[in-house]
């Protein structure tokens, strides 16, 4: 089992494997996303209270989910890279950041757009949106730290420490923001939280999440291949023709 793990971490092997895996992520991702979009926009019934605006949920919630999932994945990859000194893991963490930040931005933008017809304002300091905003700051800080070093090894390792510190803080931040939003609303309806929806209205949501996850897998495979080429530029296996 360890042999397999070590083989996986070997760059030429990983390069080939990722190349083969990418289409197996990519095409199903496209299919799932299109399916979820069609289902969410055309097939699912409109909500009783919110009408068709409610369909924004099908892009907002999956984006929010991915933003948090990717941050954890990034921190895990960074930790693996730091503890076992596997460069590929650091490369994976680096690849995660822009994708995760994009999803965070998307969650904020779609959440804000959803808020306008529903609550009348473009922005609302509710728990979900505020947490997403702070998560965006964490992503941006990570990317800023990475880019402030010329030495790639120092960039890898310093940002790994930051990612780990960040991921430990995320539950604390979530809890404190939740607590903060309940302060002035006694029986608060946390605004963009999932209300009690019928299960059949949630199917497009699950399919979209699967689609996004596959998309993430595809994007990471591609970016990681690029990173491998860049980091291994003087290695023999590359010069002998990949």
């Amino acid at each position, binding site marked *: 089992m360890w042999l397999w793990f070590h083989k996986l971490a070997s760059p030429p092997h990983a390069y080939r494997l990722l190349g083969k895996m990418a289409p197996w992520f990519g095409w199903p991702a496209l299919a799932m996303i299109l399916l979820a979009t069609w289902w969410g926009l055309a097939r699912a019934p409109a909500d009783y209270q919110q009408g068709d605006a409610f369909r924004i949920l099908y892009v907002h919630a999956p984006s929010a989910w991915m933003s948090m999932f990717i941050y954890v994945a990034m921190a895990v990859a960074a930790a693996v890279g730091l503890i076992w000194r596997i460069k590929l893991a650091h490369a994976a963490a680096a690849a995660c950041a822009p994708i995760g930040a994009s999803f965070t931005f998307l969650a904020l933008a779609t959440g804000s757009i959803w808020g306008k017809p529903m609550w009348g304002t473009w922005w609302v300091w509710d728990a979900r949106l505020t947490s997403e905003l702070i998560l965006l700051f*964490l992503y*941006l*800080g990570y990317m800023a730290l990475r880019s*402030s*070093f010329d030495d790639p090894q120092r960039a890898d*390792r310093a940002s790994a420490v930051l990612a780990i510190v960040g991921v430990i803080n995320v539950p604390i931040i979530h*809890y*404190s*923001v939740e*607590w903060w939003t309940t302060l002035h609303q006694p029986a608060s309806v946390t605004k963009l939280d999932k209300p009690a929806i019928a299960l059949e209205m949630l199917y497009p949501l699950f399919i979209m999440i699967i689609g996004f996850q596959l998309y993430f897998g595809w994007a990471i495979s591609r970016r990681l291949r690029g990173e491998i080429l860049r980091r291994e530029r003087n290695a023999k296996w590359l010069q002998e023709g990949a």
Partner: protein
Amino acid sequence: MRRAATSTAANLVFRRDLTLAWRRWDEVAQPLIFYVVVTTLFPLATTPDLAQLRVISGGVVWVAALLASLLALESLFRSDVEDGTMEQWVLSGQPLGWLLLAKVASHWVLTGLPLVIMAPVVGTALGLPFDAWGALVASLLLGTATLSVLGGIGAALTVGVRRGSVLLSLLVLPLAMPLLIFGSRAVGMAMDGESPAGPLQLLAAIFFLTLSLGPLAMSAAIRISVET
């Protein structure tokens, strides 16, 4: 040569930093002055009416303390890394975490503690009532101490980076938001006549968590900064 006890080493670090700072008074005074200036900005920007200022007084004092602390943190490790002292510490065989913690502790005494002491003065200028002083001081004691450790991690990561202090603030501020939420809320509750025990206990919990894991992160970060 027999290796000294860690507590002796830590003690020496702590006292050396305090002595050095004593000779450079102005560096210690600057964050404090910044603190007072920033709190003055808020009435100027909003209203001189104390009744209205009172509502945000706890928050303003907290934000000003946060910003002033961050300003002071950038130079925490800089001179020791530059002159090679830090490298010696890494190689010394002493547990690096303790030495760094001693440094953070002396830094807090020089920058964080004065902010806490000045807080009631500054708060009163914003209409903060006397009843809330206890919550203000307690929350800031825990908060600035926690912030010193968090800031220590950030400073260790960004040592030697150009314009490091902006980057440091960007990294540390999101992590400090829970402190701000609980700290200013504690003051707010005390002003409303409620017991601030809840948020103060949460602040204490965060402080102890940070105190136990912080030195680990700091020494990892310092090693990365010094070894590459």
